[in-house]
């Protein structure tokens, strides 16, 4: 009488049957792959990972090693020898009257093919601090003076100055890095630094207006005329639209980590190994307040970016570890093989083992 289970959906009965329609889907019988981590698979997977990772690690390490990098830390070495305390340093850096140029020489260790990138590197500088990251108005950077007042609220505490909106407003623009570097060869032939194209094209085209010019910018004030408290970093050229102020554009792309580099320019000639390059640094950016370091970096680039061995070493390590694990698992399996589906392992077949594992 109840021979329902075996039959499929065939046949429409006279009275409406509530019998569920049979389909592989509703019966949860869709064809499926049921992977199982058998020892063979485990070893194969680990070997495969190892086989992929070790070459990648090696190539990454090679790439990193091919990068030539010159790093010169200068925030203390550019100070006069008699200035040692924090207060003195701050006083020194805020004093506009002293000459702050600082000549240095760099030796090129290996041949550096062009383009050689010139970076400045800051330490302990929390460009990722929430107050800082937020303190800008993307709308104003694009639209300029037409931006509504409420759109500028995010720029606080540097929204307006003398009751007039600052363009560009916000802490980030205000604290624009203003050390400069003049490179010359030993023979005092200047090495030109290309300051164009150091920012993202998308930023220049879509985020910084070509008709927006700096105005009421505190840094542009004469230091002697106003309180130094209003002067942050670099002044901006009022006749240059923001879309061309590439230093600003670079600076305003907030760094992710407290130690960061920013591209300052590109040297588009090769630097020969052993060559000595003199740099004239104007050391005016105040990092002494928070004890931050300043470094000048000249570096070539590989496909992997700058000099960083981490990726290569990590890949190599993981690759080797995987191979090692593969061998260990192989040995375990070899020494104490457990046949597939050994029913003596079932909890109700195991003697004295009541609960299995849990």
């Amino acid at each position, binding site marked *: 009488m*109840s021979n*329902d*289970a*075996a039959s499929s959906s065939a046949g429409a009965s006279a009275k409406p*049957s*509530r*019998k*569920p329609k049979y389909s592989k889907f*509703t019966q*949860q019988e*869709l064809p*499926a*792959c*049921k*992977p*199982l*981590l058998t020892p063979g698979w485990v070893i194969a997977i680990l070997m495969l990972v190892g086989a992929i990772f070790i070459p990648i690690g090696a190539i990454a390490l090679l790439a990193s090693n091919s990068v030539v990098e010159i790093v010169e830390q200068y925030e203390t070495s550019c100070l006069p020898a008699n200035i040692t305390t924090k207060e003195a340093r701050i006083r020194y850096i805020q004093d506009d009257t002293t000459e702050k140029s600082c000549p240095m020489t760099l030796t090129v260790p290996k041949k550096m093919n062009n383009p050689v990138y010139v970076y400045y*590197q800051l330490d302990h*500088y*929390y460009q*990722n*601090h*929430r*107050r*800082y*990251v937020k303190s800008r108005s993307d709308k104003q950077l694009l639209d300029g003076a037409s931006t509504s007042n409420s759109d500028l609220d995010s720029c*606080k*505490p*540097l*929204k307006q100055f003398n009751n007039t909106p600052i363009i560009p407003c916000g*802490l980030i623009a205000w*604290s624009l890095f203003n050390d400069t570097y003049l490179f010359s060869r030993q023979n005092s032939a200047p090495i030109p630094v290309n300051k164009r194209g150091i920012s*993202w094209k998308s*930023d220049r085209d*879509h*985020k910084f207006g070509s008709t927006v010019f700096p105005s009421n910018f505190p840094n542009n004030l004469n230091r002697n005329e106003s309180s130094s408290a209003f002067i942050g*970093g670099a002044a901006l050229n009022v006749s240059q639209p923001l879309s061309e102020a590439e230093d600003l554009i670079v600076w305003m792309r*907030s760094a*992710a*980590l*407290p130690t*960061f*580099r920013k591209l300052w320019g590109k040297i588009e000639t090769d630097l020969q190994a052993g060559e000595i390059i003199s740099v004239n640094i104007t050391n005016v950016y*105040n990092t002494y*307040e*928070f004890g931050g370091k300043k470094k000048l970096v000249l570096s070539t680039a590989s496909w992997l970016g*700058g000099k*960083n061995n981490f990726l290569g070493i*990590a890949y190599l390590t*993981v690759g080797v570890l*995987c191979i090692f*694990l593969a061998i260990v*698992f192989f040995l375990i399996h070899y020494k104490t093989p457990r046949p597939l*589906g050994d*029913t003596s*392992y079932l*909890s*109700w077949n195991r003697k004295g083992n009541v609960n*299995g*594992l849990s």
Partner: protein
Amino acid sequence: MFFGRNSFLSSQEEQPRTENGERIGHGPSRSSTGSRSDGSAHLDVSDPSFESFRELVSGSDLQSEVFGAPGSMQSENAPATARSRLFSVISSKGPQAHDRHPSSSSGAGGPALPAARTDARKERVVYVDNPGRTNENFEFSGNKVRTSKYTLISFLPRNLFEQFHRVAYIYFLLIVILNQIPQLAVFGRLASLFPLLFVLVVTAIKDGYEDWGRHRSDREENNRLSWVFQNGRFEPKRWKKIEAGEVVKIFQDESIPCDIVLLGTSDANGVAYVQTINLDGETNLKTRYARQESASKHPGLAPITGKVVCEPPNRNIYDFVAYLEIDDTQAPLGPNNIILRGCVLKNTAWIVGVVVYAGKETKAMLNSSGAQSKRSRLEQHMNKETLWLSFFLLIICIAGGVGMGKWVHDHDSDLNNFPYYKKRDTADKKFMYYGPFGEGVFAFLSFIIMFQIMIPISLYISMELVRLGQSYFMVRDVEMFHAPSNSRLQCRALNINEDLGQVKYIFSDKTGTLTENKMEFHSASIGGVDYSNVLAAKISGTSDSSDGMQVEVGSHLKSGVRLDPNLLELLQTEVTSSEATFVHRYMLVLAACNTVVPTRHSGSLQYQAESPDEQALVFAASAYGYTLLDRTTSTIVLDVLGEQKSYKIVGIHEFDSVRKRMSIVVECPDNTYKLLVKGADTAVMDIIARPSEQVESGSGSLADGHLQAGVLFATQRHLDFYSTQGLRTLVVAFKDLGQPEFEEWHEKYKRASTALVDRVKLLREAASLIERNLALLGATAIEDRLQDGVPETISSLRNSGIKVWVLTGDKQETAISIGFSCALLTPDMEKVIVNANTKELCVEKLKSAIREHGITETKDVHVVEKNLNAVKGDSTRKKQLALIIDGNSLVHALSPDVEELLFDLAVACRIVICCRVAPLQKAGIVSLMKRRTKDMTLAIGDGANDVSMIQTADVGIGLSGQEGRQAVMASDFALGQFRFLKRLLLVHGHWNYQRLAYMVLYNFYRNAVFVMMLFWYILHTAFSAQTALFDWNLMFYSLIYTSVPTIVVGILDKDLSHKTLLGLPPLYGVGQRNESYNSVLFWATMLDTLWQSLVLFYVPFFTFQGTTIDIWGMGCLWAAAVVVLVNLHLAMDVLHWTWITHAAIWGSIVVSFACFFVLDALTDKGFIAHYRVMFHMASTAVFWLNILLVIVVALLPRFCAKVLMQKFWPSDLHIARELELKNRAAISEFVKSSAPSPRMVELDDVPYSDKESKEDE
């Protein structure tokens, strides 16, 4: 003789039904506790309109009030209630009450009436055929119903209001509000609103859609037509326009539009039959009566003026108190005079009635409340772990807050000069600077906003969706479809699916659950002679019969009855021998003493019976020549061997669960009065005349002392024999009533049956007058066959570590014999039988059993469990124990000081059978186990008597059986047959549990790994609540990027095939032992989470330290890495890859990247910060190398742990998976040889069909 008609045929039936009625009315807890010792307790106390009724007044108060005892004067002072006033009114005006209780009319009647007028809302007066007058005084609701919750206008506010009742949404809202505080605004305004808006909109759409369906059905319902008396004739009127007081006419097979009091019917006696399936699910016809006073004068015939005074609307569908005032007489109205909305008129040409409750005041509408909700075990555990997560959240937020405070404190003096901080603005005012402490507090709050998804709110929504999906599949499982009853599995509770995978105890009803509840007359013991020979030809029930009558029975009633040739022969002979006298009287009782209603359907006779036993008896009587032809309230017409005889019904004492017998007094054609009795043996044997008392019994020649003693002895022996065969027995007796005895009883009976209060009690007293010194006629044995596949199912369940307890109302012998036939008991078991009438004896028996079998008395559940497992492992104990305990012993054993003994003993036994238990005891046993163990309990039953048990158990399962649908209505899941339980638990329960357990762990991981990754970053942002991830990525993470795969896997992943699970029942133990979700796994997952979050953060960190990477670029990398990692983590754990799983997981990753790029390309103000970042990042090799490295390093420990676990401590599930992989042949071989089950499903037998179960019968 109107009281005959209005004798409330079912007044005593209220007893079993009240349980049901109250269940509908109340929450689960009250179902069994509401006292129903008297009529008044039937009121629904939870109904707000009866608030004052609670202060009332036991039944006895009421009674005394009505019947004029001194207490009646209280009604002036005591908080008067609608009902008490109503009674006063009745008693003061009603002539019958008046006559009998003069004191009440002068005392209570006077003051009560004005009181009723001043507080008119307490009762309602409906003027018959005068809706205008009816409705001018009171605001009765119209008949328009609205089951929909919302209107267009109220939708938004009301839906929002309801949604915010959920704590989760409040949490969301608080977070959003916090985020609006400028100091705390971690996210953009819109972005922060998104998660809340998302869930609100999704839920609102769902609710709106459901409500739209209700709107449509409402509209349809409201526009149906009924014939309403207006302008002097019946005219069709839309349902929504019908008002209280109007007179409506309903024709056969029409639905009743509102609650109406019957005035007249097409039947001269005022009888109407209704089907109440929409109301209580019972399929049999119910009889309703029009009062004699009104039956002849409905509007069609003569103008009618009168009024119905009734109680205010309430939701108890089994009770109705009112009186009808017509032509200056008052007639009481009871539940048998009202037809409720939702019923359908059957077998009656038409009825006319007056509307008393309409629309939302109808009992049907008042009862339309939702099902109760339970919390699953897993979810309870999960909540504990959620608390841990909240604790973690608090810890990291405090850590962040303290860090911020300290940082600000350390740099306080320099802060204004920091290029990246600056606490004063250009006007030299402080800008959002509140000192170290204030900054710390604000940072703390910001972190809570930022890390909000640590509390996996989305998990609750996902779980609901997953359960919905699981139910979808469970309901559609073709192998749980029962063709004969055309029923699928029903999931009535949506939130305890996974509990099905953890059941440890099953409490099963017997009748209708293990058996089919299709009663077949098996044998008869008449006058001490056993007639159980079988005429094979008769079983088929077809024409091969000598007697024309039987042919008709066979062909029209379609029931095979086992006929005994000797008995047939005896019936054909003249009534001379005492043997023949016995037989004829016996058949008369079978045919007449019941509540079966014969109906004629296109010429053939059909019986409508509320009890299948009675139906079987009537069929049997009919087969032997006593055919029940017609039954009205006053007469029974029998076809006695071809001759029509009419018996006048003088009174009926209906069956109830206390008396356990039914008796009927008839006036025979020869004008003698006879009492016909049938009932349970315990209930009837006690009132059988003992040989020494014969003289006064007056039962004539039959009552010869010697003969009667012999009959008594033989019948008792036959009863014992029948019950050892597992048959259901009833004892049949009768008595000739002498005139004085009859008069005395009749007087009392008349009074009782018209009483308004305590009718049950009074009727019982009346019954006790005559139900004594009966002459024993014999006994009946009815066979109730086991359902298909019950033994297999039970042995599978037992093999899976589930303990099956059977709780039955049957006798001990019957229960034991059923126990054997359904493989519950096996011959090698040692039976411990506890029968004790006193508490001391009971304790003694329990103690000695415990001593004897060396059971450790302990409260420690784990030790007990070990014992259990030892039993299972068949090593330590010599013999398995089976406990058989009866209801009397349980009364004592369940008392608080003894229950521990019972528990210890019961837990040590493999099998427990409780016989002769009352419904409440069933619930008591279940709650004992619930209290004493942490194990999951499941109750399964099919009848009203199982309702309390079903509601008490963790999981309640109802079988849609013969006894109506109360059990189904109360259940969480409803099945067609007991055997489906195996599949429901072993397959679906297991899957549900595995899926949900994994899903919960995974969701904890998924959210926590993300939060921890964000947390590591704030350590590098000077504790400012800055995230590198773009706002929208943060919001989309748990809603879009990672939500779909977990839901899909939660619905579709399958660790083992159903064949393996059915073939190896012990695999079910995984759920019982909480192996897939427990605190060890939780903490392991959290450790893994910690590792993965560290890898996620620090691999990019070390890669990009001291580079030109910008914050959003870094964020892109992290977002991409975490999304890929989390999805691959899931992929690594998926066991069953269908194309849907592939689509979900890989699709999710693809969609995520698509979202990244879309967010990247938007140049709107809110998105410009992110413009082209992903594009720049994705074009570098480092980006991809980082993701690859993160994934491998993050997953490696988990991978190795998995491999090692599988190698050294393989779980049962893993071994079974290996078995599956090895090959199917190996499994089936293994299943045959080594699994501990004696009976195993053949794995090759695909699909598992119920055929195989037949062999056992």
